[in-house]
């Protein structure tokens, strides 16, 4: 018997086994945002988010309240999104997709809107997931470690690396845009 198999959900938390539609409505936007941070394209993100919820629905009876339902959903969503990106990268190797940029970051940049999104596109999918889980969803390092299935120390190093890459890139963009602004001032 699995640990916590007969434990009820914590007070205030929805039970995926019996309240999945409510959980879906409540968490849809949050999961979408996490997925979008990983895949970057809004329409792909919605499709992948929906697939994530479908997986979660099929697995709802196996949910154990060792983590909040939101964290459980995010774990499924992150794995689904990263798998999606792997398949997309593989698809580009096919002859029909020769005109797509082979590097994932080039493709992501072509779809990026806004400086911040372009900065996020500089990161690997795993780093993007870490950034959005911490800085937007306010998950702690330990919670993110459980969601991503990595050690807590790795979460900390990923966060630091992500912020460093983004800071450096944004500074470079600001520097390259500098002469235009100085002319207009």
């Amino acid at each position, binding site marked *: 018997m699995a640990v916590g198999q007969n434990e009820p959900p914590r007070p205030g938390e929805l039970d995926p086994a019996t309240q999945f539609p409510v959980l879906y409505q409540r968490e849809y*936007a949050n999961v979408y945002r996490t997925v979008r941070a990983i895949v970057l394209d809004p329409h792909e993100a*919605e499709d992948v988010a929906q697939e994530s919820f479908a997986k979660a629905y099929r697995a709802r009876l196996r949910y154990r309240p060792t983590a909040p339902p939101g964290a459980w959903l995010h774990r499924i969503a992150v794995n689904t999104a990263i798998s999606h990106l792997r398949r997309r990268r593989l698809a580009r190797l096919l002859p029909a997709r020769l005109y797509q940029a082979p590097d994932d970051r080039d493709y992501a940049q072509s779809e990026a809107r806004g400086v911040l999104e372009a900065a*996020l596109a500089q990161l690997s999918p795993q780093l993007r997931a870490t950034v959005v889980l911490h800085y*937007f969803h306010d998950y702690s390092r330990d919670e993110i470690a459980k969601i991503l299935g990595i050690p807590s120390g790795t979460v900390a190093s990923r966060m630091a690396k992500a*912020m460093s890459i983004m*800071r*450096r890139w944004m*500074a470079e963009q600001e*520097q390259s845009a500098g002469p235009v602004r100085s002319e207009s001032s």
Partner: protein
Amino acid sequence: MGVQPNDSRLAEAVRGEVADWHPPRGPDLHDLMLRAGHSAWRAQIALASMIGAAVVAVLLVLAVATVLLASALPGGEAVKEHLVQAP
């Protein structure tokens, strides 16, 4: 190199950017159920199909049994002749 934004400013920028991301269509429970393979009609169709197949099988067995029985009963020689008669 330009001035790098500090972490708190960058974190604030991330929060603002991500908060502006809204799903183009929003939650669709019907689509979700289809993707999850949970169709309200699927079980009923499967049941109806199984029942129909079972009925056909029973009818087939009854027909064969009827023919065999009829040929074995008194006066069934006509049936036997009909069965063995070459077209």
